[in-house]
């Protein structure tokens, strides 16, 4: 399965990095997580803010679907969300921006270890998968609402 172009570029970059540089890059992505939050005056087609049992703090997913059907996300994370999950938030917002709902649903999870590295994917860091699940879930909810309307 091929990945969306922007995500594939990030995967390619991360796979080529030595361990220490990979960590530094992930921290850099985590630092940018706040830039993925909704901005003043932005309107969304769907807002899904909740804290559930799979993550250590609340996660807000904000979806805007453009006229061509492209999905654009903003994500707001609670302060206790882990660093890896913060990093993945930035990566996903950048890597999946503009995908159609169908393209988004087709993105597999198997790229996560390629980005994060086997060393960091382990017990107590599985929330790294959580953001993608929430993004897909938000998009599905939006689609169901469209069908009903």
């Amino acid at each position, binding site marked *: 399965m091929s990945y969306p172009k922007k995500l594939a570029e990030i995967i390619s970059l991360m796979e080529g990095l030595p361990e220490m540089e990979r960590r530094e890059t992930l921290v850099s992505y985590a630092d940018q997580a706040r830039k993925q939050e909704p901005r003043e005056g932005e309107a969304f087609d769907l807002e899904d803010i909740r804290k559930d049992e799979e993550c250590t*703090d609340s996660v807000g997913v904000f979806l805007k679907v453009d006229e061509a059907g492209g999905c654009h996300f903003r994500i707001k994370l609670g302060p206790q969300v*882990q660093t*890896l999950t913060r*990093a993945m938030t930035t990566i996903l917002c950048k890597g999946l921006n503009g995908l159609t709902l169908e393209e988004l649903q087709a993105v597999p999870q198997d790229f996560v270890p390629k980005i994060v590295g086997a060393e*960091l994917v*382990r*017990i107590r860091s599985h929330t790294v998968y959580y953001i993608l699940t929430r993004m897909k879930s938000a998009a599905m909810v939006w689609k169901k609402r469209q069908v009903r309307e």
Partner: protein
Amino acid sequence: MSSDSNYVHPEVLVSTEWVAEHYKDPSIRIIESNEDILLYDTGHVPGAVHIDWRRDLQDQLVRDYIQPSDFAALCSRHGITPETTCVFYGDKSNWWSCYALWVFRLFGHTKVKIMDGGRDLWISQGRPLTREVPNFSTSNYPVPTKRLDQEIRAFFEDTLKHSQQKLPLVDVRSPGEFSGEVTHMPDYPQEGVLRGGHVPGARGVPWKRAVNEDATFKSAAELRKIYQEELGLKPSDNVIAYCRIGERSSHTWFVLTYLLGFSNVRNYDGSWTEWGNRVGAPIERT
């Protein structure tokens, strides 16, 4: 040092203020241990080194701790000698710092302390963080002659025997995990346990009861009330504590051993991820 001199060993707790005043002392090594594996990289107490509970302290092939030679190499890499006072702190109300301290005790390192309140308190007080990783001259830590597995660690068979003999077992997980209603912590994904419940005869005392809102430890009087008055434990009791993978029970082990002065407490690090998956292990649900 600690805010409550009524602890049996108040010297094992240091305040954030104390750390701020002593982190440059060459006889002291500040050690951060977290659940969030990249948290240290985002900023840490100046001069602090990082010890990763899984990469650095656990054997990567066998579910066990590193060997004495690996421990000596780890300490040497961070310039730690047997005379170095290791001050641990971290996220999650010091779960993993207590875990790391417990592993250091397994290898017989005696000069250990916890920074009360951990990382969150340090940050909430506006104290400085740095991303600069310190580089200490390598030391020559002698290879410990043994690991104190018999003294402060319990295995499955020890815990089963304890249960059968109705000796004190403290389950420090959340009430839902203890009752068997859930097989994971609140806010955490399932970590692969097939059965829910608790070791027969165990009493449930969530680790969290031992800390205040700011992650500092409760006073000696409050802790005595919980563990001695409510639970009926005595400092001379032979106690085993467990959780899911041994980190929350390290926290309770620290409380009982150092703050309340219990002389015979062991941490069952196999905990519920071993017991709840073990074929034939008896389970109680309430």
